[in-house]
């Protein structure tokens, strides 16, 4: 028999035990540990940048397009330097907060908004559901890039507008998936049972539908994170996203594009950062899905024999 710390009732004393149990579950999945470590590095990068612990980021013509792995130089130059001689590692760290900030806020907004709207559309249906779905169809009817370009052109390129535009253009995907999942869960007998036992719509949505829909939505969100990072770089490339001298990984990839044959590292390292981050989120989402599935989580917390 598995022994889990699953609570009978959510009470405060059990919270610390729950955290301990989650850590044990994390240790059961090496890939998730690696992912967590990378995300920890990312968080550290954001911290060092916001606490201004980095050396200066001067233009230095001597170091123009300096190749990476020249360990004779100062540590800032270990990943090489860009066309203006700015150390790539420092630029990469400075770009972290913008990139992660935009991506996470965007994905969270569309995740929360899309899930709520989709669950409501799926559970209640009727006029409300139809209105929500038709708005989705309208947004999906236009090419995403066109909507984004138009929005940013109208309201001006700024980080806030970028987040709003990206969140809105991505939201229909979440709404549709959440609605489809809700339609399926709604017909399960335990939802009828909750109704028979006197649960109102809010209770059923909160305790029975949302927890069943959440794992799918989180997986979708983790996949979307990469898309948002790349999409932001596309918009930045067109001059409507991040404005230099601010920098993001996507923008760095875009700027490095012209130097691919002469200085590959300009595009490679920021691209690598995007890939590792996305992959980490993916792995953690998968881990989270298993943790929240009672018939699966014995895989993570096996007893040592």
């Amino acid at each position: 028999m598995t022994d889990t710390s699953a609570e009978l009732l959510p009470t405060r004393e059990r919270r610390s035990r729950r955290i301990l149990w989650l850590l044990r579950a994390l240790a059961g999945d090496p890939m998730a540990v690696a992912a967590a470590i990378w995300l920890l590095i990312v968080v550290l990068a954001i911290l060092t940048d916001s606490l201004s612990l980095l050396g200066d980021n001067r233009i230095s013509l001597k170091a123009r397009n300096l190749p990476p792995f020249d360990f004779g130089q100062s540590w800032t130059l270990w990943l090489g330097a860009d066309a203006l001689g700015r150390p790539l590692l420092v630029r990469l760290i400075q770009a972290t907060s913008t990139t992660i900030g935009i991506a996470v806020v965007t994905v969270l907004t569309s995740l929360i908004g899309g899930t709520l709207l989709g669950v409501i559309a799926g559970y209640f249906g009727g006029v409300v559901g139809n209105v929500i779905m038709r708005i989705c169809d309208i947004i999906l009817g236009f090419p995403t890039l066109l909507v984004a370009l138009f929005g940013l052109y109208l309201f001006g390129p700024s980080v806030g507008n970028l987040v709003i535009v990206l969140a809105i253009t991505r939201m229909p995907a979440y709404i549709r998936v959440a609605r489809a999942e809700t339609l399926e869960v709604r017909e399960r007998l335990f939802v009828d049972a909750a109704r028979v036992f006197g649960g109102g719509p809010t209770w059923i949505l909160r305790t029975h539908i949302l927890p069943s829909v959440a794992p799918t939505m989180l997986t979708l969100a983790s996949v979307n994170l990469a898309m948002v990072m790349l999409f932001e770089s596309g918009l930045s490339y067109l001059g409507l996203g991040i404005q230099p001298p601010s920098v993001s990984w996507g923008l760095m990839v875009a700027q490095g594009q012209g130097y691919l044959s002469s200085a590959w590292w300009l595009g490679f390292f920021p691209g690598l950062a995007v890939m590792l981050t996305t992959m980490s989120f993916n792995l953690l989402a998968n881990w989270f899905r298993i943790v929240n599935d009672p018939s699966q989580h014995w895989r993570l917390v096996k007893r040592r024999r």
Partner: protein
Amino acid sequence: MALLEVKDLQVSFDTASGPIFALNGVSFSLERGEVLALLGESGSGKSVTASAIMDLVPNPPGAIDRGSIRFDGTELLKLSRTERRDLCGSRIALIFQDALAALNPVYPVGWQIAEMYRIHGRNPAGGVEKAVIDLLTAIGIPDPERRARQYPHEFSGGMRQRIMIAMAVALEPDVIIADEPTTALDVTIQAQVVDLLATIRKRSDAGMIFITHDLGVVAELADRVAVMYAGRIVETANVFELFEDARHPYSVGLLGSQPRLDTDEDELVPIPGSAPNPLALPSGCAFRTRCPRAEGLCAEVVPPLETVGPGRQAACHFPVSPA
């Protein structure tokens, strides 16, 4: 006054090929402390009756066309959604047939029993957790403190049905509706669950409607039986009277197609034909096409449910005479 009184209930479902009348004027009553068995074949309207009482008829396509359901003096069909919801679970409870599907797989069973108290904002003496453990002990789950934290998939079928029963009786309802609670279980487990239902019902002296097609369970548990056929009640009788001398030819056929140990009959007598197509019910009595006693009158007039003896009724123009 009866605890639960259903009168002339008609429920229909819209389908592509026309409306299906799942219930055609069902009337019965249930007293406090009484066990009423609803007996009938698949499609006779047993479960729809339960759904109508619990406000579970999907609308659309289903609709309650006419009739009344009075519970403890209140007309349920006239109550608002919220008022009915307050009754559901706390005063009228339903036990599902498929306990595995009716329990949410992502919550521990103790949590789900506790859910009953939380939905209705009850605070039992000694706390919810103690109440849950007490209930689990009462339904015979060993080591309840540990088992309460386990998930539905970690229980056997019989255990899950017990937990379903615990949820239904948690708030001591006045009426318990059990929708074929033993159909999916082994015979040995069936007997245990039926025993449990009987004891737990006695605890709060609730009335119980027991929906089944299993005559053995009826004989063991029920006080009174209502036999259903094609959306109508065709006979109601005390359980002993029904087994001794059934009056409606359908009841007789039902009893005759079941092997019995207490008679010398060597042969089982099946009812010829099959249940009628609900889209095209025969005129008059729905059973006449399969009935050995049918005559011309049966095709013209729907037989009303008439008193044929003290406390018993049958809906037949030519009832089987007393043995």
